[in-house]
């Protein structure tokens, strides 16, 4: 055994013993410029001595035969870990004594007992290797293993220890999920194995009995012969073994009924009943758990196993082959947990700053539901990190139940002061209190991050572990915090519909996973149809995972306590809290009220399970683009195949990566065409732009690039038609804001041109073959910084970000314009519409400093916001309005 590993290096050589006297810094240190730049000014230089380039996940096992050994890494590429010695590191991480409690015959008990070991979570580091790891230990059951347990661990290895420390909670949460999934599968497999073993034993027993009987009949005298005694002993052994195994089966079956201390151990109810069922079928006497129904298939499947005779002597310990991790767990569960881990790896890619800003960005964007539809990709699409961590249920249940757990936020600053809570909650809190919505939960919940990080910052020389060491109180606080930190915004309650609407990004691999989520078990039969039951908990807008309470009685109590705590604490703050009321809407109609506002009918309306988009998983992976990946797509637009790079069309959700790629195309367009500014103005002011060209690939590419400028393009770019080759009608013009049109020279082409000229007042035409643009003239200044063909921006991703910021500012202005009362309505009775109009123009010109042409952009955006606010397109039965202007067009050439 190797001694305890390095303590996590909160104490580096340079700043050892210097407690930071400064108060909470307003800006995390990463963002401030160092006064005295060091010799190596690379801020990432500290970690550069690590032998691996990217963070990765390592799964290791303490094999009873060969000792600690690495099993696999995620991502599974040899270059990931580079020259990093996995064997050595496995040794280190597995050498932590993780309270593997006793196994075997406890005193006073006749049978071996299974130990239900809670997972342990440890952070450790190896300063020589430059590696730091979050290590999650777990045990799996194996009938053939010593003490029936096989110790495993999953480690998230990073060169940046801050990243691990500050995201400890989320890492812990995610790994717990994976661990639960593995363990659930393992229990299933274990129960199955036990059953087979029992059948074997019973068969052996009967054979032995028969043999004994025959022997006795044949020669009753030899009763006490050595042979007979041996046989009798063997029989007794088998009987004992049967009892032992029955007891084991009973234990494993009763697993889920026992109290759990682990707050993250959320489980799919249905899975648990499956496991329970496995055991129940064999041990008939356990009829106590009436909630499970008989699985006909399960019953019929069983006899297919032919029992085998068991030799009295088992093989030597070192001869037998140990089961692999895959064999230990049920196949589907194994796959699912690997998927979870991959997902974890993806979501933690990139630097801490990047993760921080991305999350900050999201939490802020969630506040701006009213304008998000304009230029932002759907906020809900990538919020899976924050809200949809669910116990992964790999089995295709007809009803899928999962718990919404909210992981804690990242904390950047390692040493928060007493009154300072996490930056995120702080922000959301202040915003909320400005809006008069937020209740002050935060004061009432001393952050447990504080607790933990302070613990560790003392620099004690031991690895600290949570989970097992945590008291229940801490667990509660932990939960409380994670719930509260998300809760204050009433708009962002995650209701099931909302969840489902957020759609394919969140969809997991299994079909039906998106169905019937978040449903209280008590209200729904396990086999009921996929009726969604929205759950609203009105306790000062605090969303409590009530379904968890239903799934697990123990945790349920915990949550109730939690709610009570909250209420109590709120009382302390002399805020009057309404009593906790549970509103459960079961009417299907009620769903519509809760539907996400920014979705499109086609995707959202159908509740069928078949709607699970296969792109979901893919898109998901794509949306988590890391910093590194963001930069590698610089040139790919030009090399890829045409079809593959034109994602705009029905059905497919436009992902962030596609948008980044489009950024490159847009930059090229801006640099190539001096009249790009006019084209962009057309798109932004709501005039349909037709891109006319012969070559489909070029047209599609340009459409994909210009789609960035279409306000409110719809979730799957419904307002954009990448390629069409037939004459269009008026309804096409108003359905689509950006159209790629084929130039044909056949007779059909002339009718096409006729339709172009007929509707020319409604459209602008960009001819990419002749390089002309026909559109109204634009004289404004607003767009000059995004459409400057002499721009010094060279990279598509930079341009994309630049564009995002400009458009975001535009959206903010439009929001202001839309919701400023006196710009639309008279202040006094005497005022006529002219006065109001004048005031509006004055506001646009003087307050916002816009030209006349720029006004049109803002007025258009404002119109969109108004319509969206009044009636989201998905809800309206009326045909959409199409606004236009009667202005002359000019022809621009290069």
């Amino acid at each position, binding site marked *: 055994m190797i001694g305890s590993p390095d303590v996590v290096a909160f104490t580096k050589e340079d700043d050892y013993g210097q407690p930071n006297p400064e108060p909470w810094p307003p800006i995390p240190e990463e963002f401030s410029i160092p006064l005295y730049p060091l010799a190596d000014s690379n801020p990432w230089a500290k970690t550069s001595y690590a032998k691996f380039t990217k963070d990765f996940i390592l799964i290791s096992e303490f094999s009873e035969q060969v000792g600690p050994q690495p099993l696999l890494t995620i991502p599974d590429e040899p270059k990931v870990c580079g020259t990093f010695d996995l064997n050595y590191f496995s040794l280190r991480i597995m050498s932590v004594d993780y309270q593997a409690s006793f196994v075997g015959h406890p005193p006073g008990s006749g049978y071996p007992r299974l130990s239900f070991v809670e997972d342990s979570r440890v952070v450790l580091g190896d300063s020589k290797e430059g590696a730091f790891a979050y290590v999650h230990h777990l045990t799996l059951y194996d009938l053939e293993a010593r003490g029936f347990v096989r110790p495993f661990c999953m480690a998230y290895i990073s060169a940046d220890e801050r990243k691990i420390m500050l995201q400890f909670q989320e890492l812990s949460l995610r790994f717990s999920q994976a661990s639960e999934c593995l363990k659930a599968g393992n229990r299933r497999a274990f129960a199955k194995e036990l059953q087979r073993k029992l059948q074997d034993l019973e068969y052996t027993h009967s054979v032995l009995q028969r043999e004994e009987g025959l022997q006795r009949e044949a020669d009753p005298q030899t009763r006490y012969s050595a042979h007979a005694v041996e046989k009798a002993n063997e029989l007794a052994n088998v009987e004992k073994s049967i009892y032992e195994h029955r007891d084991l089966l009973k234990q494993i079956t009763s697993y889920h009924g026992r109290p759990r201390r682990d707050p993250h151990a959320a489980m799919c109810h249905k899975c648990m009943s499956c496991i329970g069922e496995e055991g129940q079928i064999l041990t008939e006497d356990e009829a106590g758990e009436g909630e499970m129904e008989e699985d006909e298939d399960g019953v019929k499947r069983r006899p297919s196993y032919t029992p085998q005779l068991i030799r009295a002597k088992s093989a030597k310990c070192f001869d037998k082959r140990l089961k692999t991790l895959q064999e230990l767990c049920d196949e589907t569960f194994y796959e699912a947990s690997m998927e979870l881990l991959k997902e974890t790896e993806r979501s933690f890619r990139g630097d801490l700053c990047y993760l921080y800003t991305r999350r900050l960005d999201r939490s802020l964007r969630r506040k701006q539901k009213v304008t998000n539809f304009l230029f932002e990709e759907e906020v809900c699409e990538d919020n899976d990190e924050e809200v949809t961590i669910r116990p992964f249920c790999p089995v295709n249940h007809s009803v899928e139940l999962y718990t919404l757990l909210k992981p804690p936020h990242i904390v950047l600053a390692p040493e928060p002061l007493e009154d300072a809570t996490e930056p995120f909650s702080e922000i959301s809190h202040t915003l909320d209190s400005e809006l008069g919505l937020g209740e002050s939960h935060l004061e009432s919940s001393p952050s447990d991050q504080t607790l933990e990080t302070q613990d560790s910052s003392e620099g004690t020389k031991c690895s600290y572990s949570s989970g097992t060491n945590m008291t229940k109180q801490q667990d509660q606080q932990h939960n409380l915090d994670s719930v509260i930190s998300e809760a204050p915004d009433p708009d962002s309650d995650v209701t099931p519909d909302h969840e489902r609407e957020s759609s394919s990004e969140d969809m997991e691999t299994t079909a039906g996973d998106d169905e019937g989520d978040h449903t209280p078990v008590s209200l729904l039969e396990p086999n009921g149809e996929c009726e969604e039951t929205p759950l609203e908990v009105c306790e000062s807008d605090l969303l409590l995972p009530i379904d968890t309470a239903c799934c697990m009685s123990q945790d349920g109590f915990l949550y109730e306590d939690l709610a009570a705590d909250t209420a109590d604490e709120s009382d302390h703050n002399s805020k009057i809290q309404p009593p906790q009321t549970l509103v459960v809407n079961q009417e299907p109609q009620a769903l519509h009220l809760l539907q996400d506002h920014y979705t499109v009918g086609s995707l959202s309306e159908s509740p069928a399970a078949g709607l699970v988009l296969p792109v979901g998983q893919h898109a998901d992976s794509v949306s988590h683009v890391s910093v590194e990946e963001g930069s590698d797509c610089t040139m790919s637009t030009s090399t890829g195949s045409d079809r593959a790079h034109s994602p705009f069309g029905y059905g497919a959700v436009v992902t962030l990566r596609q948008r980044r790629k489009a950024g490159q195309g847009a930059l090229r367009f801006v640099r190539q065409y001096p009249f790009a500014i006019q084209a962009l103005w057309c798109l932004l002011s709501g005039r349909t732009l037709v891109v006319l060209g012969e070559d489909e690939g070029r047209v599609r590419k340009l459409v994909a690039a210009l789609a960035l400028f279409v306000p409110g393009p719809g979730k799957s770019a419904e307002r954009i038609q990448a390629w069409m080759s037939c004459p269009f009608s008026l309804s096409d013009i108003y359905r689509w804001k950006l159209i790629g049109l084929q130039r044909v020279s056949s007779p059909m082409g002339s009718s096409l041109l006729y339709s*172009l000229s007929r509707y020319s007042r409604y459209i602008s035409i960009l*001819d990419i073959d002749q390089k002309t643009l026909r559109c109204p003239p634009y004289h404004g200044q607003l767009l000059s910084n995004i459409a400057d063909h002499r721009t010094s921006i060279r990279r598509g991703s930079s341009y994309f970000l630049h564009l995002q910021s400009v458009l975001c500012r535009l959206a903010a202005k439009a929001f202001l314009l839309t919701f400023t009362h006196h710009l639309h309505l008279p202040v006094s009775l005497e005022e006529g519409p002219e006065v109001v109009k004048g005031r509006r123009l004055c506001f646009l010109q003087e307050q916002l400093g816009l030209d006349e042409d720029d006004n049109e952009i803002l007025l258009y955006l404002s119109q969109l916001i108004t319509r969206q606010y009044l009636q989201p397109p998905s809800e309206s039965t009326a*045909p959409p309005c199409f606004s236009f202007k*009667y202005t002359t067009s000019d022809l621009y050439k290069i």
Partner: protein
Amino acid sequence: MLRWILGSREAQSALEKSSVLCIGEEQPQNCFTELQVLKGHFDIVRFLVQIDDFRCASAGDDGLVLVWNTETGEKLLELRGHSQQITAITTFKCRNALTTQTMLITASSDRSLSLWDPDTGNRVQTIADLHSSVKCLLVLERLCLWLSGGEELCVWNQDFQLQCHQPNPSDTGIIALIELPKNCVAAAMDKEIVIYRLTVPADSVLCLTEMQRLSDHRDQIRALINVNDNMFASGSHVGELILWDAIDWNILAYEHILWEESQSASEIRMGSSKPSEMSIQHLCSNGKLILAAVGSGLYVYSVLTKTVLAYRKVAHDSNVLHTMLLSDSELISCSEDGSVRMWEIQDLPLAAEPASAGFFGMLTFGRSSKHSGPPSKKVLDVSNLKMLELIGDLIGHSGAVQMFVSFKENGLVTCSTDHLLILWKNGERQSHLRSLKLFQKLEENGGL
């Protein structure tokens, strides 16, 4: 306009030739800056009727009657029942003891008549198996009766009971019906206008007596309208417009509209020119002016001075199908060319009258269509003549625009052979209304 797309193209359409008509894309006076396309019909939409301030009904060759909310553009009801195309539709105010309810009467080629409730969509009454299909309907609200005209003329009461009928008045059947004072109605059939009087004799059975036949038109009558209480007007296929006295049925004025290529052309030649070019397709009036759709041209006639006020020989590329006088100076026309055009009657700038625009004969009653020399005519007219100036056009339909209904400032509904209805609105006004709604909703929700 197209040439930059096509590269070089020699041929220019007739539209482009008449430069006056090509208003271009800059139309500051055109307030219709927002539109909604209303889909629902499967065939040509021919009729539109206004039910009340915010509803209208459309009917067409698919036998469907659709009721629309013109404020939101929503389809409120589908009235299904007719198996063939609708030939006539009108509103009918049903008077009960307490309320007056607007109902719809429809006639179809399946030789049935139906009464609909546009609030519920119920088919309240229906009469099938008529002898012939009904071509026109006339409601006499004062008498609580209504008439249907086709090959026979029938009078019905409020409960769809036949009061009396006049079989087979002519070969071609009645194409138009109007109400005249003193319980009289005028029915246009072929070249004649027949005046009937509704009387209730002692035995209290309603009866229809023919009073007079007016046969002054030389060709088929195409349009028959009421002008005001004292006058009605009719127009024929060859461009005759006759103004009649509504009480003693005498001719007050006779106008023969003769579009002419050049001033030197003889009358014989004009007669041989395609009659459809001068056929009066539609007439409308606001009591002071009569607007006649003549071929593809427009013709404004003043009732007070009994003179032509303004005209435009080529107002559209194709036949004008429906017209309306919005005010004394503004009018709208729609045509087979798929466009709706808005016109303004403006004073002529001095010496700016287009030299060869057109020619018309102003004749008093009894005179033959031979007229005196054009120069003198022209001098006579120029003093009063005004200009019909295009102030805007609405392009959206891909087929002939059959009809339109104006909801004043709330918009304009057009229907077309392309199976669509388009609701044209004032964008600025709509945007203001939406803003109002937005702040209302904000208030209801108590903030964002």
